[in-house]
């Protein structure tokens, strides 16, 4: 007797039986088990920089400074007030994908071929989440009239990171420093990737809070350039290399296998990560573990449709189709907890995201 869980690899191994012979229940049981595991992994990975929430509107910024006034025995200070932040909304949209077969397909084709279709569909979901994450971080403009069309058509003010817009209210810094929302931007631009511009990118995020750690996320395309900035950058070493005794070293070990998703060293005070979702020439600094997270991953109130799931199994002989959906939206919340640098232009140009 064999024990174990049916997985996609079992299906891919079954290449010499048709689905009709293998059994539809076995086929779809394995796909569902894989889908559950996949949804768990997605939630965990997104949670690094995006807080899962069902909120659609929050208040952000404010608490600017008041001033204690010296007064004498008969003095009475003038009343003061501060601006109490501004609304910030989070988008939510519906994304759908369908696969369709004929009845004959089930009789003739193997589970391996069905599994391949399913994996391609799952990959499309991952790519959509990555694209929305990029759009939330890299778009420098607000959407002040976003309609919450999957709930009640209320208009939400979806905002970008701090983007130097008149009327913007940003939180004060840890030492009482106030930041002028009309001029303070977290979308930086430099004609070339210089050490000074990367230092500035990190400072832009670091100056806003004292908790958490700032990470610098770069694309693999820019890795060589960052490694060459030896005055600011100290590389993690491959564990198989014995370092020289008289050089400054970072103590963590370099992951040599995954070249597009790994920490590679320390730049100023920030750990540098190569990440697959970072666009070339658009490095990003993000505060991890701070009081607020830069992004939120919004799903519907009550948790419905928060995961990729099958919404219809449509069997109309001779066709059969399955539709999968995920409802989510990624929006900015901590407007000063992340910053982007475009390192190949003097003016920040919004990248084209598929």
């Amino acid at each position: 007797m064999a024990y174990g869980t049916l997985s996609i690899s079992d299906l891919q191994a079954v290449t010499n039986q048709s689905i009709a012979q293998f059994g539809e229940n076995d086929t779809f049981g394995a796909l569902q088990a894989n889908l559950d595991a996949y949804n768990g992994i997605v939630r965990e990975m997104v949670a690094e920089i995006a807080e899962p929430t069902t909120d659609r509107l929050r208040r952000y910024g404010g608490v600017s400074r008041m001033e204690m006034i010296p007064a004498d025995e008969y003095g009475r200070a003038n009343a003061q007030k501060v601006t109490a932040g501004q609304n910030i909304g989070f988008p939510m949209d519906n994304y759908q994908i369908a696969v369709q077969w004929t009845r004959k397909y089930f009789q003739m084709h193997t589970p391996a071929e069905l599994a391949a279709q399913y994996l391609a569909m799952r990959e499309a979901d991952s790519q959509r989440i990555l694209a929305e994450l990029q759009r939330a971080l890299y778009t420098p403009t607000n959407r002040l009239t976003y309609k919450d069309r999957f709930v009640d058509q209320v208009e939400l003010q979806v905002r970008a990171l701090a983007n130097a817009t008149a009327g913007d209210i940003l939180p004060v810094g840890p030492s009482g420093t106030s930041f002028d929302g009309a001029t303070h931007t977290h979308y930086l631009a430099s004609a070339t990737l210089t050490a000074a511009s990367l230092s500035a990118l990190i400072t832009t995020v670091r100056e806003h809070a004292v908790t958490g750690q700032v990470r610098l996320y770069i694309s693999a395309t820019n890795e060589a350039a960052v490694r060459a900035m030896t005055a600011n950058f100290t590389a993690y070493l491959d564990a198989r290399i014995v370092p020289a005794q008289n050089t400054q070293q970072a103590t963590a070990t370099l992951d040599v296998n995954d070249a597009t998703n790994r920490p590679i060293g320390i730049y100023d005070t920030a750990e540098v990560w190569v990440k697959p979702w970072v666009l070339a020439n658009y490095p990003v600094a993000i505060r991890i573990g701070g009081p607020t997270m830069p992004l939120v991953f919004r799903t519907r109130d009550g948790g419905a449709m928060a995961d990729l799931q099958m919404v219809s199994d449509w069997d109309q002989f001779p066709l059969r189709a399955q539709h999968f959906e995920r409802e989510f939206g990624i929006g900015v919340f901590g407007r000063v907890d992340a910053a982007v640098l475009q390192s190949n232009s003097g003016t920040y140009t919004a990248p084209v995201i598929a």
Partner: protein
Amino acid sequence: MSDATKTTATTTTTTKATDAASGQPITVQIVQPDRAAEGAQNQLDGIAFLEAQEKPGVYVVNDQKVDGNGEPVKKSDG
């Protein structure tokens, strides 16, 4: 600090160790670029860079200059 100065700035470090066979001190001279000073200068340059960026935001979206609300920027503004 100019780029030319950065590449020529050096620090000479003298490290003393003991030769295992003779017990005599060995002097090693290491000459390397002054990385610490260069890094500090980069941070200062970075702050100057940041100050230069602080102004009402103008961004390019779909080949058009816009402000933070996505409204087209008038030529007189930027």
